[in-house]
């Protein structure tokens, strides 16, 4: 069988990369490489068009105000629609913080800037005066990747979900979407939005593998991914969880990844 291929689109890598977001792309690429799957990462930035069928997975990180304004304008053209179309057709997508906000309906910043969103996610974000900063632990409610997610959040936006998408999980420690309703992130088809940066995927490899498996299943016949030795990942995950929850968690970090 010919070598499997995963085509990753890294959106605005130089503008939307705050707090080490690019670690997510490194994680996806390495976990493919270790399984002898060819990962092709294409950087797409301002003014560069995309073809929805060219990619299996999209990543967009967080950015500061000025970068977000530039990106919002760029996404409001055909590119935002192309991303929506790709997700409708089953492509995977991970968006973090500022990227997550821009894929919602709108982001009204605390300074009064009204940034229109792509409306991929049925979420609305309004800037707040205080920032939500700290370690986060989330009980992930995603079919095939249940278990705990660990990360770090740092945002002033308060995001509320509409009926068109569901939360990624329940906050056990931290603020999450808005600091009030206990939800964190959102899921629509194979597209995720979340406030967990801290390079989410390296320390939460079950989520990286969820994306890889979903993306590959669109183009290839396979039930599950070959297992990897995740001892370093698990150690870092457990350590972060202990640090966040303050006790040795008895909750199993990982549910076995399966096609069911």
């Amino acid at each position, binding site marked *: 069988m010919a070598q499997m291929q995963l085509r990753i689109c890294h959106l605005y890598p130089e*503008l939307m990369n705050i707090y080490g977001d690019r670690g997510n792309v490194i994680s996806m690429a*390495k976990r493919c490489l270790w399984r002898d799957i060819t990962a092709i990462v294409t950087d797409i930035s301002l003014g560069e068009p995309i073809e929805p069928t060219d990619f299996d997975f999209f990543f967009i990180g967080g950015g500061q105000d000025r970068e977000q304004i530039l990106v919002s304008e760029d996404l409001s053209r055909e590119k935002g629609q192309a991303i929506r179309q790709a997700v409708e057709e089953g492509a995977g997508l991970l968006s973090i913080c500022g990227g997550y906000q821009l894929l919602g309906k709108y982001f009204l910043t605390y300074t009064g800037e009204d940034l229109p969103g792509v409306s991929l996610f049925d979420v609305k974000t309004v800037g707040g005066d205080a920032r939500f900063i700290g370690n986060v632990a989330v009980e992930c409610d995603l079919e095939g990747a249940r278990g705990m997610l660990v990360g770090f959040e740092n945002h002033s936006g308060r995001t509320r979900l509409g009926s068109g998408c569901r939360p990624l999980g329940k906050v056990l420690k931290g603020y999450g979407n808005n600091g009030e309703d206990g939800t964190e992130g959102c899921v629509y088809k194979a597209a995720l939005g979340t406030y967990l940066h801290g390079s989410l995927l390296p320390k939460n490899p079950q989520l990286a593998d969820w994306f890889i498996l979903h993306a590959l299943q669109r183009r290839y016949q396979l039930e599950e991914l070959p297992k990897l030795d995740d001892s370093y990942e698990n150690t870092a995950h457990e350590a972060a969880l202990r640090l966040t929850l303050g006790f040795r968690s008895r909750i199993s970090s990982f549910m076995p990844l399966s096609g069911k």
Partner: protein
Amino acid sequence: MRPQTLEEIASLLPGGCVLVSGTNGKTTTSNLLAGMLRAGGLQPVHNKVGANLITGITAALAQSSDRRGKPRGDIGLFEVDEATLPAAIKRLTPRLVILTNLFRDQLDRYGELESLGRKIEGGLQELGGDACILLNADDPLVASLGNESKAKKYYYGIEYEEVAEGGLRHAADSKNCRSCGEKLAFSVNFFGHMGKYSCPQCGLERPTVDFAATGIELKGATGSQVDVSTPQSSLRLALGLPGLYNVQNLLAALGGAELLGLETGHIEAGVEDYSTAFGRGERIPIRGRTLFLVLSKNPTGFNEVIRTLRAEGRDLAIIVALNDRIADGRDVSWIWDVDFEELAPLARFLIASGTRAPDMALRMKYAGLDTAKLQVEGDLKKALDKAIERSRDGETIYALTTYTATLDMRRLLTRMGVVADYWED
């Protein structure tokens, strides 16, 4: 209306743009030049290490500009990938282009050196008569460029033959004359294909050098003492960077600074400032080894240290201690912005330590470090013991430590009686 394009933002820089290109030495040269510009009271807008394609330059300009899109800097100083140089010249209309050298190390991307040379030549043709090109005279291919350009050409090079290598190495690039194809005759060879040369067939000669190193004393890993002669002055500089290639980088930066109109005092101050950046590190003798302790607290600092370690060779004994106390920042995500991919091939072993040792170890695994070379030991004392145990007599152990991890290490060394307690606050 906010300026949108690279051209528009760049045109708002009062001091214009300088481009530094070539296979090796871009970063060192532009960092040295940046230090000289700052000493002269000019704030350069600088692209990040490795972000040397058009997108990286656009990002640097976008990030350094205010809400109206006006850059918060006086002069653009951009490292440019050599294949991108023609496009960058076209779009940025630089006042100065510095070309360090052309080696063969990325041929898979660029095709033959010769065709790369032709592309660069095409780019240089776009320059106007008021622009300058500063070329490395020691590199025959680089020195042959710019003949079709209206810009004024200047050259830098080594004029001190005592530092030459025995003979031209087998693998050296650019052995042939660019105008007639005949094999060049080298009377002196510094390293690689750098030297003094002429063509026995068509008579091509190495150009006369404007910015010359007339005396060099190499002092191993600690750096060099360099005598420099320029149209403006004669200088003796203490360069805190090892190797002859860094002497060339110094000449490139200093030539650039002089062409931009900086005074000699600013050039000296810039070199001194840069040389102390790595000199921040402390060398401490410990149980027959030397512990090289260097504070590395953010991506920029780490990248700078990693770059310098590359000059120390491979096979290194390394400790990286990552803490997440308040003074370090509770969020350790920034380690994914550090180019640890460049540190991984330098390590014989690497011990990840500090309060976030597992995160650090994970980063190294994804940076491509063979996990057989990777050890996790959160406790700094145990990490140091292990490093001493695994290293050889007389060897240097490189400890890259975040802010509070540096303090921890100093306290530890004081307790061990290795250093006097003047460190204790």
